[in-house]
Structures are given as C-alpha cells and as structure tokens.
C-alpha cells in the first residue's frame, strides 16, 4: 500500500487581473508552486458574465497544494483583500502521494 500525506488544497477564485497579486502571496508564503485554471463564465452578486476576458472582468481559479501551516499563513496574508477584492477562497484536506515536497 502506497503511503500518502495529508496536505491542504487551496483554491482561490479571483479576477484575472488580480492573479499576479495572489500568486505573489503564494510565493511569499513559501509554497512550492501553484497552477491557474481558466473560468469561462459565472454569476454572483455583481450579476452574470460570460467569456468576457475582453472586458478584463473574468475570473481565474488559482490552485495550490501546501502544508496546513503554510496554507493558513497564506489565508492570513490574503485576508485584507479577501472581501475587498471579492476573492473566494476554499480549502480542504487532500491525500497527496509522494507529497513530501509540498
């Protein structure tokens, strides 16, 4: 049976122009890396949007795997802009295989 480690998986839904801000914080938190996934449409308090990268108001999903400590450090670091910039941060425990490096 292959051994696994428990890590935090953090996913942050953020305005694309803000992705740099968020990834900078991830790097600053000493997390080993991150990945960005595209989001094609959505709906929230501000109403609906669809494939509007052209208007710079589309979203991206930033995903990062980190140790619980670093994860909450990141959460702390992002706290100030969370509500102001309408970030949506969710995290949960995942099993990572060969995950020592995370």
């Amino acid at each position: 049976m292959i051994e696994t480690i428990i890590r935090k998986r953090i996913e942050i839904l953020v305005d694309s122009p803000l992705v740099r801000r968020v990834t900078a914080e991830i790097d600053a938190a000493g997390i080993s890396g991150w990945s960005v996934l595209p989001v094609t449409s959505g709906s929230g308090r501000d109403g609906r949007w669809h494939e509007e990268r052209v208007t710079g108001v589309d979203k991206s999903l930033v995903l990062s795997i980190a140790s619980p400590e670093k994860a909450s450090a990141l959460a702390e670091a992002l706290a100030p802009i969370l509500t102001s910039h309408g970030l949506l941060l969710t995290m949960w425990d995942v099993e990572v295989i060969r995950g020592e490096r995370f």
Partner: protein
Amino acid sequence: MDLIALSTFTSPVILFFLLGLLAATLRSELAIPEAMAKGMSLYLMAAIGLKGGVAVAESGIDAGIAFALLAGIVTSLLMPLLAYIALRQFARLDQINAGAVAAHYGSVSVVTFVTANEVLGVMAMPPAGYMVAVLAVMETPAILTGLLLARKGQARAGHDRGELWREVFLNASVVLLLGSFAIGAIAGPKGFAEVKPLFDSGFKGVLCLFLLDMGLIAARRLLDARSLTWRLAVLAIAFPLVNGTIGVIIGTAIGLDPGSAAAFGILCASASYIAVPAAMRLALPQADPGIYLSMSLSLTFPFNILVGISLFAALANSLAGS
C-alpha cells in the same frame, strides 16, 4: 447627414453589430469564442497602429501632432471631473462608483475609434495617421483622475501600486498600439506593403466579426444589468453627446482637419471597456462592474457606433465650413 447615416446603416460593419444586438436580445446561444475575440482585438490594434504609423511616415511630423497629443492627454485628465459631478449630483452615485465610471468616460474605446476611422474614410474625410497615437495616449490619464476622485479624503490602499502602474502604463492595448504605430513609422509604405494583405485588406472583414461579438456582449450585459438606473442610462447617452461636442470643438480649435477633429470628438465621446475595467478591478474592486460596464459597453458604445460617429462627422464639417 441623412445620406451618411444611410450609408452607415447599409455597411456590413454596422449591420453585423446590429445582428449581434438582435441575436443576444432574442437570447440566441450565438457566441464568438473568447480566444478568437481576443485575437481579433489584438489584430485590430496592430493594424490600426501600423496604418497610423505608415501614414505619419508618409505625411511627416508637424506641430499638429504635438498639439493633438497634448489636447488628448489634457482632455483625458479633465473630462472625468465633469462626468464625476454629473454622476454624483444627477445620478446620486456614491463616491467610489462615480470615480470608477468617470474614469471610463475620460478614457477611450479603441473599437469605436477604429469604426469611426472606417466610416470617416468612406465619407472622404479620413483622420490623420497620428490620431492613433492620440488614441493611445488618451487611454490611461483618465484612470488617475478617476482614482483620485474615488479615493479623495481616504487613506489609499497603496500596496498594489506596482501592479496598478504596470496595468495602467504598460497595459496590452497601449503597448500594442504605440508599438505597431512605431513599427509602421519605421517600416514606412515600402515595408508595410509586404504585410498589407493581412493588415489592410482583411481589416473590414475582421471588424465585422468583432462588432458582431461586441453586439452580443453589449446586449447580454444590458439584459442582465441589475444596478442600472434610468438616471445612469440618461448619462450614458448624455456623456458622449457633451464630451463629443467638446472634443470636436477643441479639435477644430487646435487646427485639426475636419476628419481628425471628428475623430477627436469620437475619442472624447467614447468610453473605455477594456483597459479601465481591468484597472478598476485592481484599484477600485469595491466599484460595481455592473454599473460601469453596462454604461460604457451596453449604452455608450452602441450609441457612438450607430449615431455618434455620423453626428460628430457632420459637426466637424459644419464647424470647418463656418
């Protein structure tokens, strides 16, 4: 004027825009893939930049350019003030949203300018090539004014400065417009000849498809718009009328030819829906995109495409005539 308007409405470019508006209103699923839309807007900016640069290489530089650039920067800086007051007083918008919207109206819409360029060309009053440079320099100053207005009397959250300045001064459209303008000026007519088939012959066709997409996006936004009040809607039509008229007058005053004066009017009348919204998400995230995008994209943009352009062309002509 009638003739112009008429020819405008039988031009495929405008007809495709109307088709987009109609299809979205009927809630058709028709949609242009985002990568394609983005690609077309890059193409349009590169092409218009190149053409402007080539024109300048041909005509040479004169004092007119300096005046036009200066006028562009100043109006982009000051126009938000006017808009801000109207938004606060008449539309009773809070400070932050008023500042955000004001920034949009001080800045410019590339596609509106591109379309105007085509229409004015058809009307035998093509704007001077350097108007592309004016377009580029007018995009960002208004953002600064808008931010000052929105934040005045408040401690500003300075920590995302770097990001913001990059977004503002090195934003894609400014870099691409000025870059291809320079390339056109360096390469000149001879160099441009080799790439003409793509950037010149194909231009209007691409503009058709792009405006089809703009029509779809503009109408969909309007249908989903929640925060749009009738007072804001009124201003979204009043702004282009007032700013455009001021623009044409300034343009004529500083001695631009009718075509360029009309183009300058269009620039003042147009509102940004690309560079500024992106900057606002960074610097004024509390501002509601539902307000500034519905106004600039769903009302002002169509108004300028369908009415504004012909209007300011006629105005510029009559002023030149007098």
